[in-house]
């Protein structure tokens, strides 16, 4: 496949492969997952670019980096909050302190969201 593909479409393809994977992928595994005969160095360049944009996160595994896709800002923040809650300790106490520190606008927004969730039958 010597077909020329635009930069943006290559990024989409790599991103799609990362999202489709069960866990983090090394550049070599991404090449394999794409299955379209992209060169290793090309994939590596794209991964570095996606990382610079904040679309993927990476961690060092041996000599190579291994990449995972990143949720958008709101999703990321929610994930972090969830992780902190899950860390253990008194969940109710953490939530109480959190709610206590909210601005009146945030309080209203939160109350609205909870009310809407209850209406949808999702407590």
């Amino acid at each position, binding site marked *: 496949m010597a*077909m020329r593909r635009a930069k*943006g*479409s290559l990024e989409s*393809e790599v*991103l799609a492969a990362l999202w*489709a994977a069960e866990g983090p992928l090394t550049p070599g595994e991404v090449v394999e997952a794409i*299955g379209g005969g992209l060169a290793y160095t090309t994939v590596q360049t794209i991964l570095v670019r996606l990382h610079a944009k904040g679309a993927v996160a990476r961690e060092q595994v041996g000599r190579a980096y291994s990449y995972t896709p990143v*949720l958008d800002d709101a999703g990321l923040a929610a994930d972090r909050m969830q992780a902190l809650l899950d860390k253990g300790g008194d969940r109710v106490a953490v939530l109480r302190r959190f709610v206590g520190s909210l601005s009146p606008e945030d309080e209203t927004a939160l109350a609205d969201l909870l009310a809407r969730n209850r209406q949808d039958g999702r407590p």
Partner: protein
Amino acid sequence: MASYLPLLLSAVFAVAAPVSARRLPPHLATWLLSAGGLVAAAASSASLGLLALDALAQNPLLAARGQWSGAVLRQHAPFAVPIGVLATVAVGVLAARFLHTAGRRLAAMVDAHRLAAALPGAGNELSVLDSGDRQAFAVPGRPGRIAVTTGLLRSLDGAQRRALLAHERSHLRHGHHLHHTACQLAVAVNPLLRRLPAAVELATERWADEDAAAASSRDTVAGALTRAVTGNRLGTPAVVLAAAATGVLERIGALRRPAPRLAWWQLGVPAGLLLATAVAVAVAMRDTEQLFELAERGYLAGQR
């Protein structure tokens, strides 16, 4: 007779064009339906407009203001009075329908641009939605975005994912939503063309399938399509699901065959129809002009 011919020919086009579209290469089919639909709609509108003009101009007040003879018009008018009234009412109703559709489509376009900007993963062409459902869609905007659920991405292999992205990208690159808009506007002013929107939707899906096949292979696209429809969780209204499935079966069938080649008569017949329609409109306009010249002479004779 020339006044009715464009209406008649647009009715023939309404039947012939979707039939031709199924056999044409999809990009030509799309253009035939959208551009051809607009021509047919413009012709039928012009024809109705002329009938309405003939009818309105017989009104004594207007005739006096325009300095032509209403009596001469009445005498030579190519139709009975009720038809003129009907045409006038139709022009009003169809104009309102046109405005309504144009407004609705414009609002939808604005919504799409907002959505394209608001989709997660800004700065990337691809926006991944975390959901088990198998969904993919293209959102026109600046730039346009492609949204795909994780459920669909995980059900496809590498080549199928590339085909999926190429398919959605084709929608954006060729502005398929504008072809849809053109057909909806055509139907608004000429309800006879009501089969065009569904036909153009199928044609643009086929167009995107062919582009996807060029980026991978016909079998890959067919496989990806099958995965995309079979894995959908229930919860989508049954009617929508059925409609989507019909189109998909036809698209998979087309992918199992070689890419369609252009047979000239398949484009020539509907194109000839459009040309005849345009000529009929020109003739009707000339007839009307002559009629008014006659009426003006009649008015001057009455003044003497």
